[in-house]
Each structure stands twice: as C-alpha cells, then as structure tokens.
C-alpha cells in the first residue's frame, strides 16, 4: 500500500497529461476512423468536418446566425437571468435564514416549486411575456442589437433555474452561522442592518458561492433545453436543433462541444472565485 502511494507520486504530472491529451487524441482517432469507415456524415460526421465547423465560428447557417453569434446570445441570456436569480436568491436566502417568521412562511412554497424542472415554466413564461424582448420592456421596439434576442420569457426560465439552488444554499449557509459571531457583532455594537451586511453575508459566503456555482451550471443546462423548444429562434441550443433538422450533424456536434466547454469554463471560473474569496473556509478557529 505504502509502495503504491509512492509510485503514484513518482508519476508526477503524467496522469494529468494522459487525461488532457492522450485520451482525447485516442478517442478522436477512433471517432475519425469509425466515421470514415461508416461514410454517412449526416449521421456520424468525421472529426475533420466538426473541426472545420469549429474553425469557422462566424460562418452563417441557414440565415440563423453563426456558431459564435448564437453562443453569445445564449451566454447573454444566461448571464442576465442568472444575475437576477443571484441577487434575488441571496437576498431572500439571508432574510429567510435570519428572520424566522419569514423563513417558516416561505419555505413550503420554495420546497414545492424547487423540484419543478425549470423548463416546465417555459409555456407559462411565453404566455405571460409573449415574445417580449428586453428593449421592448423599456419602450424600444427594435434596438438592432443583440438585446433584441433576449426574450423576457427566456430570462424568466433562466431566473427560475438559477434561483432555487442559490436560495436553498444561502439559507443553509445562514442557518449555519455560528452563534458566537452574532453575539460578538452584537456586543461590538452592530445594528440589525449591519449584522446582515457584516456577519450573515460574509459568514454564509462559502455556501452562497456553492449555490451560485450550482445555479450557474443549472442555468446553462436550462438555456440549452429552452432554446431547443419550439418557438425559439436563436441561441446555441436553437442552432443545434435547427442543424439537426437539416441533417447537419457536424454543426450539431460542434455546438455540443461548445456547450460543454463553456459549461466547464463557467464552473472553473466559479471555483476559482470561491477559492480566492473564502480562503478561510473550513478553517474557523
């Protein structure tokens, strides 16, 4: 056992290099050979075709925009909806956790709505908001910018997707705040408002960030699904669906790879932020 541990260490960075380089290359090679052998690119395109698509992210497809423009639209929708969810979720979580009557009053409804798949809200959201866009909200019919593609219904569904992980994690964080910190703040003269701002908020920051990370990941899931629904006319999920209807499997797979990489980058970024901002996590003394 001891020896195994040693030999694991001796390998240095090799396992990582294998995972990041060798395994993908082997899989791509198998894919390429299989695809060439099968020779039915509308079902199973070779790697080279997919790479060719990825290498031309600005190429227009069926007057529905490019891989890049649709990716940007999806990201914009997610970031807007998620930001709203983050602000509302953190605020409500802190209020629920620190004011007991509010928590008791709201928790049942949260628990019922939470397990509901955010996509289930889409028909309702579209019915309520029609296809209203962000510029129309402020009275501009067409801004001729990317914001014309940001429908309120989409934002609402993203909001729902991000809101629940944020609110439940924040609530857990607030309920886990050590009583000592509250007592300390009180004896040092903190008012109620100051206690929210300078104790509840920072003390539950590790859980808040966990919630934000989960929420952002879920938002990215939800936007792709929402864009694949009927009625959608833009976004990377829409392009994926549209390309599939046109048997352009190379574009479908290119879109899948983009979605996966962006999801991983969002997660990675949130983790970095978390490690930086809460260096004290798990080290309370």
């Amino acid at each position: 056992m001891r020896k195994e541990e040693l030999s694991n260490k001796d390998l240095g960075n090799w396992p990582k290099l294998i995972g990041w380089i060798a395994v993908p290359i082997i899989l791509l090679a198998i894919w390429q050979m299989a695809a060439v052998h099968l020779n039915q690119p509308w079902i199973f395109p070779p790697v080279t075709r997919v790479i060719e698509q990825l290498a031309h992210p600005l190429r227009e497809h069926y007057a529905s925009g490019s891989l890049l423009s649709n990716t940007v639209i999806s990201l914009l929708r997610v970031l807007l909806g998620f930001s709203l969810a983050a602000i509302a979720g953190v605020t409500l979580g802190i209020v629920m956790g620190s004011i007991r009557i509010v928590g008791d009053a709201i928790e049942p409804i949260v628990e019922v709505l939470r397990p509901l798949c955010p996509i289930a809200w889409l028909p309702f959201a579209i019915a309520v908001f029609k296809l209203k866009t962000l510029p129309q909200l402020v009275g501009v019919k067409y801004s001729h910018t990317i914001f014309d593609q940001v429908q309120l219904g989409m934002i609402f569904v993203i909001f729902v997707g991000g809101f629940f992980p944020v609110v439940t994690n924040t609530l857990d964080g607030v309920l886990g705040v050590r009583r000592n910190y509250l007592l300390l703040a009180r004896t040092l003269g903190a008012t109620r408002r100051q206690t929210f701002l300078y104790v509840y908020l920072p003390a539950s920051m590790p859980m808040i960030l966990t919630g934000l990370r989960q929420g952002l990941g879920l938002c990215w899931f939800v936007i792709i699904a929402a864009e694949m629904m009927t009625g959608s006319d833009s976004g990377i999920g829409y392009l994926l669906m549209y390309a599939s209807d046109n048997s352009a499997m190379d574009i479908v797979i290119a879109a899948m790879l983009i979605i996966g990489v962006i999801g991983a980058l969002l997660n990675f970024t949130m983790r970095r932020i978390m490690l930086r901002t809460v260096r004290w996590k798990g080290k309370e003394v």
Partner: protein
Amino acid sequence: MKPDEAKKHPGDNLLALDLRGVSKTFYSTTGAKVRALEDVNLVIQEGEFITLVGATGCGKTTLLNLIAGLDTPDDGYLRLGDGLRFGDNVAYVFQHYTLFPWRSTINNVSFGLQMRGIPRKERKSRAFELLSKAGLSGFKNAYPHELSGGMRQRAAIAQALAIQPKLLLMDEPFGAVDDSTRRELQQMLTELWQEHHTTILFVTHNIDEAIVLGGRVLVFSERPGKIVREFNVDLPRPRNRMTKEFTNLFIQIRQALSGQLD
C-alpha cells in the same frame, strides 16, 4: 505595584454592576430542568478586576450572557452602572471563535469602530495602534486561521478594547492556549488593566489564573450555579506565584471549590 483597587480610589464608589437574587433555569430538550443560576448576588465597583472561578459548565457563561444582555434572567435584579450600555461600551471576549474568520486582523480590531460609523482612515489607525500594543503590528493583514492561539486572543482583546469598553467580560479567554502563552497573555492583560483600569469580569476554571489576575476572586458552585465564597487578593502586581500568601490562597480556594464537589 497596585494595592487593592478599593483603596486605590478612595471614595470612588461608582457602581459598575449590581446583581441581586439573579436566577436562570434552562430546560433541556428532554424536558429536564437545569438550574443554571440561583440567587446570584454580586456588586462590582468601577475599575475592579474580578475573577470568577468554578468548574466547567457551572453556569458562569450563563451569568456573563445575562450581564452582556444576550439573555435575560428569570428572576432577580440586574443593573449595569450609569453610562454602561450593551452594544456600546460592554465588551465580551470568548474562548473560541473570538474573531471573524473572514476579516483580517486589523479589520477584526476595527469592527466595532466600523459599526459606529468612524471613517475608514481613522479606524484603521486606531486599530493599528491597538494591534501594536498587543504585539501584532506585523500581522495586521493576516487572517485568524493564520495566527497562533495566543495571537488570536491578543487580537480578540484588542478588538474588545477598540470600542473603549467600560466593562470587559471575559469567558475563559485563555482556556485554549498552552501554559507559557497563557502566562504571557495574563501579563499583557494585567498591564492593560493597570493602564486603563477598565472594569473586568473574568471567568476561568483555573485557580492559579484567578489569583494572578483578580483583585477579588469569586468562587462559583455547580448546579445550581451560585457564588459561595469570595476572596480578596491583597498581593502586589505582577503577582509572584512562589510566595506563601499565593499558595495559601490557592489552597483555600481549592478547598472552597472541592467543598462544593462533595
């Protein structure tokens, strides 16, 4: 060298704290009744350094919480001296989790000043001064988990002193550090008290510590918690543990405590 504080301030009889017949009962989750405090009578003059010694879990913390206004007594009379107010000039130092882990040392010390709306620059300079006094000027940007146990308690004391307390409550603040650090901290606290004459109520289960620090030592009984004996410590500070008087007092207090255990 300081004689007994009552003699130090002749005629200076400002009351810091007055407790009469204070009682407190808790109910455990199983419904059992726990008499935490029973008929506690205690009068503290301003500028006194009182130590309260008793076994762990005998209600001392409950008493401090009542005084700090974090809890209310079931029965009896509790009054803080004139000008003393909870959340204003009554500070509290705990044994554990004495600092906010998300704040650097200097931001911990300046917390109370920040709550009072004192401008950033001023509160930083005042906090830095206190940190320097506590020997932590080199650690102002360190976080609590990066400090040793002794340093944390120094910082906690600086944090409490920053609000210029008129009453300092301390709940076994040196209970979690090693012996030599504990002695250093005791010395620092003694010096601070000699300089400022802040009223201090210090809880400990360590008899030696109670005698080294206190002008008066109160012996606390267990279940129900009440003050059973009181000793005046008429020994010059800093106190020498190797004197006969010290040892005699130690034995007397030990007897008073173990009398409670029978």
